[in-house]
């Protein structure tokens, strides 16, 4: 079964096609890597699926439910969570609040009168321990190092317990120690039956992690398939390395 499917997706900015008639299907419980040179439409693809950027035409089908217009605030209802390429945390809030905030009521009155159940706090603790930031829980997010910020962001996504995770370059710029935590987190997701779509440049990591690889170039689908098979095709390597 497909966790995520897109059909004939189109997006253009001022006449330039960022995503051009793209159709894809990603199987449930797998890790799919989206690769391609800079400007090939990878981030735009994630932005379209998560509603940050409106779709020009085409359909996104998530867990069998189709959507033409996605509002960002409906995205979790489809079972999707994402991270951002340039880490976007709530800087002037504490680490613990950064995660707690996504666990609470979505409804105004609900949020106003909510009392945090032990359940929420326990979840935050679990996640923070997993990404190794429990010690830092009272620090402001802006005081963290780059790597810690990336980990906090993935932690925030993990807390959501969604079906599909869209991760925009989760490993970029991480030192080995933190990289290990991040890789483990992604593998855990697969192990618990979640679907992961990640944008990545590092071929070794893709070989290690990805079950499925999607290659984009200028917004078009260049190749798609099992990772070892796709990565061995010469035209893919050429397009990719020729950037």
């Amino acid at each position, binding site marked *: 079964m497909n966790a995520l499917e897109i059909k004939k997706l189109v997006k253009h900015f001022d006449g330039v096609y960022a995503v051009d008639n793209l159709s894809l299907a990603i199987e449930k419980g797998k890790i799919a890597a989206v690769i391609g040179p800079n400007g090939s439409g990878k981030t735009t693809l994630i932005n379209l699926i998560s509603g940050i950027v409106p779709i020009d035409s085409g359909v996104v089908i998530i867990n069998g439910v189709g959507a033409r217009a996605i509002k960002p605030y409906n995205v979790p209802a489809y079972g999707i969570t994402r991270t951002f390429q340039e880490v976007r945390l709530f800087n002037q809030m504490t680490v613990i609040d950064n995660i707690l905030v996504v666990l609470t009521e979505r409804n*105004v009155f609900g949020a106003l009168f909510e009392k945090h159940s032990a359940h929420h706090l326990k979840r935050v603790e679990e996640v923070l321990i997993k990404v190794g930031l429990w010690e830092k829980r009272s620090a402001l997010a802006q005081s963290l190092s780059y790597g810690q910020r990336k980990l906090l962001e993935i932690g925030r996504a993990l807390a959501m317990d969604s079906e599909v995770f869209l991760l925009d370059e989760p490993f970029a710029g991480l030192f080995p120690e933190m990289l290990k935590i991040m890789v483990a987190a992604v593998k855990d997701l697969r192990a618990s039956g979640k679907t992961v779509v990640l944008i990545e440049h590092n071929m070794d990591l893709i070989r290690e992690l990805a079950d499925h690889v999607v290659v984009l170039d200028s917004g078009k689908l260049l190749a798609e398939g099992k990772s070892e098979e796709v990565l061995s095709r010469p035209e893919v390597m050429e397009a990719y390395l020729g950037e």
Partner: protein
Amino acid sequence: MEYLIHLAILFTVYAMLGVSLNLVVGYTGLLSLTHAAFYGIGSYTTAILLTQSGVDFFPSVVLGIILTLIASFLIGLVLSKFRDDYYALGSFGFNAIAFAVFLNWQNLTRGPLGIPGISKPELFGIDFSNNFNFLMLVLAFLGLVYLASRFIVNSSFGRVLKSIREDEEAIQVFGYNTLYFKLAVFMIGAGMAAIAGSFFASYITFIDPSGFTLMESVFILVIIILGGLANLRGSVLGALFLILLPEILRFVGFPSSVAAQMRQLVYGLILILLMLYRPQGLLGEYKI
């Protein structure tokens, strides 16, 4: 002593305005310069009802809040489309329009002539035309406003507000329809400003449009920036400082004709120096 009580009442009114505006500016990051409009709607509602119909003070406060909620709902709906400095300008515009309505809707507001002879409340046999009793009443309301604000900022709702301030798009993809949150806090702040307005009108007994100009909104903003953004105690402190400062300057004895301009100069310099050296304000927790 009467003078001190007078200042204490004014301070309390402005502390209410500051605390309520801080919810919008400090916690949610919406640089609103339209607060004086809501303050004015509250003032005018009370003034008109008290002078022209037999309605009592407290029902007039409630009606003032209701009218302000309606106005702030509509204004907030428009403003929610804007961000940052555009938000500031748009809200400035609404204050200008509200001022024009106060000035020009003469059948209702008497325009520039103002509304004189507004009475003070009476409740449970306590006569609030005694300024001291009145002070206790406003203080009690400040306490309520303060506690309500405290409750709001410490709730999950408040946490979402802060995340909107930090990165609205990011919190959206976690499933929050931020429009509702922004509207809700904007209306809550406006409603609190209306309470302050009702008390002001009743205490001062005379209001005219000149009390609700753009510069009044700027003054309230200065209160919260000085006291500290996203810090409720800071707003109270800011109001205390800015209400007392000109009064203290009355005692310092500058050459009289220059003193008042000096005060403006001091306000200006305070803003510049704060921005240069402490942009979050005295007690602030958040930098704009």
